């Protein structure tokens, strides 16, 4: 069992990391930022897996399994849509090549 103060320390420091990392994101990529953070907020899947990972099939396990499905949608959907978006951001040369291809 981790001490509550250790957890609070980790939490506070993580807030600072989040603050600085997020301010570093270029405004042009704010949409991908939202979908990536969608994806990584799917980290609650760990909690869901722990609740769902018991041997006995009972109500908590069933709820846990639903939570796993929902969190997995977030993770896969979030990363996939970010990937799709990021592929679209091209430099001048790449955009010109792409234009030629489509013609």
């Amino acid at each position, binding site marked *: 069992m981790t001490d509550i103060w250790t957890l609070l320390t980790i939490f506070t420091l993580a807030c600072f990391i989040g603050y600085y990392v997020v301010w570093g994101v270029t405004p042009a*990529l704010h949409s991908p*930022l939202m979908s990536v953070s969608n994806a990584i*907020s799917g980290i*609650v*899947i760990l909690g869901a897996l722990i609740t769902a990972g018991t041997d006995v099939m009972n109500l908590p396990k069933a709820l846990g*399994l639903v939570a*796993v499905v929902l*969190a997995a*949608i977030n993770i896969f959907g979030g990363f996939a849509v970010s990937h799709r978006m990021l592929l679209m951001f091209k430099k001048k040369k790449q955009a010109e090549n792409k234009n030629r291809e489509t013609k």
Partner: protein
Amino acid sequence: MSCGFLSFSYLLSAVLLILSIRGLASPETARRGNILGMIGMAIAILVTMYSPMVTEYGWTFLAILTGGIIGTLSAWKVKMTSLPQMVAAFNGLGGLSAVFIAIAEIIAGSQTYLETSLGLLIGAVAFAGSMVAFAKLQGLISAKAIVFPGQQLLNLALAVAVVSVCIVFCLNGSHSLFYILAGLAVLLGLLLVLPIGGADMPVVISILNAYSGWAAVGIGFSLNNTLLIIIGAIVGASGAILSYIMVKAMNRSLTGVMLGGFGVNNSKTRTSGETENKVAKSGSPEDAAFIMENANKVIIVPGYGMAVAQAQHILAEMAKDLHEKFGVDVKYAIHPVAGRMPGHMNVLLAEANVPYEDVFELEDINREFATADVAYVIGANDVTNPLAKTDPSSPIYGMPVLDVEKAKTVFFVKRSLATGYSGVENPLFYADNTIMLYGDAKKVTEQIVAALEKK
């Protein structure tokens, strides 16, 4: 498996997930970052599955697979104009996931009442709020602010009820109180987002994004899971910062947005005597084509109307023709709140193959309007309104706007002279150097392209 291995893997995963956000500092590193994020997430899931905390694999694997397929398919199919809805829906599912975990924990006999109920509360608000935001963005319910008398009082009463039920639950741990808490939080989430109108959606989506992070933090505390706490905090910070940026870009207060009803009081047409007798000049797409092909520099200002009309592809073609055939310098100017989510316009333009070097943020391009021959405003209105700079009595006063009026000629592609979302009349329509191009954003631009290509 040793505890050290688990902790080490979680640490590695946390670093990789942080790097996935860090990568978004530039489009060049963003894709690599996204892949690092996927690896980090995969490590976290695999190690948790492998650990003694999980002893059953069939159902859990099936659940991951089901969610994975649904998520990937919807991400692959979604249109970029519908991106905001999808992000709202994902936020909601994340919140709902936290709700189910919290309920399962309590049934299974968890004693961490405070942490678990916080996870439940925030998750439920995020879920309900996101569903309303989704319905509004998808057009299932009116995007207008839905307000009724006594609404704020009701919300306040609900908030007080939620806090008191939460406190009582923490003291006595009665399960029925926990369910009441869940119900109240869902109701609160619904009522909080209903009064918020369409153009405020970028703020709402950002706030809900933050909530889904804070909910993960709550679950992390209740399960003693450091990775959940770290990543939840970062997602929370991300949503909070984005809401701050959006609120600033509209010069509004967070409470103002949350209390809702923007534009409701001003919806009566504000015809100040000055503009009443003035006539707006209108022109044909051919005129616009002629003026633009003879220009040195054209700045395009896209707004949500461009996205609604799906005009981004034809717009990119117009820019390309102007540049390649006539040697015009074409740039794009993006206001932070253009679109229905942060950065929405950038994605739509990128989708239309506009290189990101040609797309500029407000503060980087605003000075250039003075040297531009043409500002081509398509589907935007409030974000160009000079009253925000000059009229302290205007509801949009103080909002940063694009200085399009400084360009030699301003084209407004619009259906009519109607006011924008704020309900404030735009005096620019009547300015001497403004020419209105009436019609659908896509059709007008198509006609301009046709005129350009004839030559």
